[in-house]
């Protein structure tokens, strides 16, 4: 299945790093959003997006709120969601999991971890 990624992060640097990493892994179809609100707008407008990689700490609508909105929306609920965040404490990871993220990466990430988590999500789908 061809993957179309939505990379959500308020840091331009991080978005570029994630996209460079995806490109290095052989993926070439991605769009970007700077916060959860913009991400939801893009998801609503573009039904071909099937994989969301999102940060947690973002203004306007946070990554966690984005995950909850996606899971609560009948049309979007089946999307694959990978959270990539600096938040590495157990309580945060559990909260993200309860919001139904598919997997979780603690920044700074390595390309190996990114590949491993994407593969895990794809294989579980």
């Amino acid at each position, binding site marked *: 299945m061809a993957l179309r990624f939505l990379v959500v*992060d*308020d*840091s*331009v*640097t*991080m978005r*570029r*790093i994630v996209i*460079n*990493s995806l490109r*290095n892994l052989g993926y070439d179809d991605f769009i970007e959003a700077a916060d959860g609100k913009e991400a939801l707008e893009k998801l609503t407008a573009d039904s071909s997006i099937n994989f969301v990689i999102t940060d*947690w*700490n*973002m*203004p306007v609508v*946070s990554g966690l709120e984005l995950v909850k909105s996606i899971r609560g929306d009948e049309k979007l609920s089946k999307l694959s969601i990978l959270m990539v*965040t*600096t*938040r*590495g*404490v*157990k309580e945060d*990871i*559990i909260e993200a*999991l*309860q919001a*139904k993220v598919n*997997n*979780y*990466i*603690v*920044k*700074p*990430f*390595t*390309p190996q*971890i990114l590949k491993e988590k994407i593969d*895990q999500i794809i294989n*579980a789908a």
Partner: protein
Amino acid sequence: MKQVNNMSELFDRLNDLKAVFRYGQKLIPIIQSIIDFMRDTVPLLEDINHSIADSTSKIPKAQDQITNVSSATELATTEILDLVDSISADIVNIENTFKELQKEEEEKGMLWAQIKSLLPDSAEAAELINKFENGRQFITKSSELIEIFQKIKNDVYNITLSLQVQDITSQQLAAVTHLIESVQKRLASLIVHLDESDLHGFEFQKAYSTKGTTFDPDARYTKSTERQEVADEIINGALNKTSQDEIDKLFS
């Protein structure tokens, strides 16, 4: 008899009064000390108030400087990423051109093998053929060069990955700004009784608020995999559960 009793009571009261005066006389130096102490303390308190006002007025500048540092590092990181992308694109171009040359050289090699078979079987021809073939090192060297290209690409990509430090330090700086803001609010509450002139140049509502920005105060740039391992343990534990109810029970 009643008069005697009254007189006795009067003396008792006078003695009480005398005791009060004596006690009062003892208290006078203490009260004087307190007055002196207060007199000395007032300028000190004023100094403290001025210091607090001065420190508070400097806080916006400190926040401003931190914000500038964050913006500067973001700008520098973007410039580095632009350069890295440009280098990566150049390397890919060079590598592709090189692979085309490599392919051409292989084709030439096949043509050369055909030509060689048509050449006369003479010692002079054999010597020239050897000389020519020894000079053609492109194919043998090319695999080494391809490896070098790959190494450069990896190094450039690793530079990109290292730039994650910018996002993480930005969050750490945002946390510091937030902390300064909290101190500012506390100090502001201490100096509300000061004369407005003491707050010259200081605006409480100045737009340095970190409100609206989000950050992780525990953000860390580390090569340690410890935090990822914790995440993996939790996520993998949950992935083995078949239903959301089971996941919720796991963490309840």
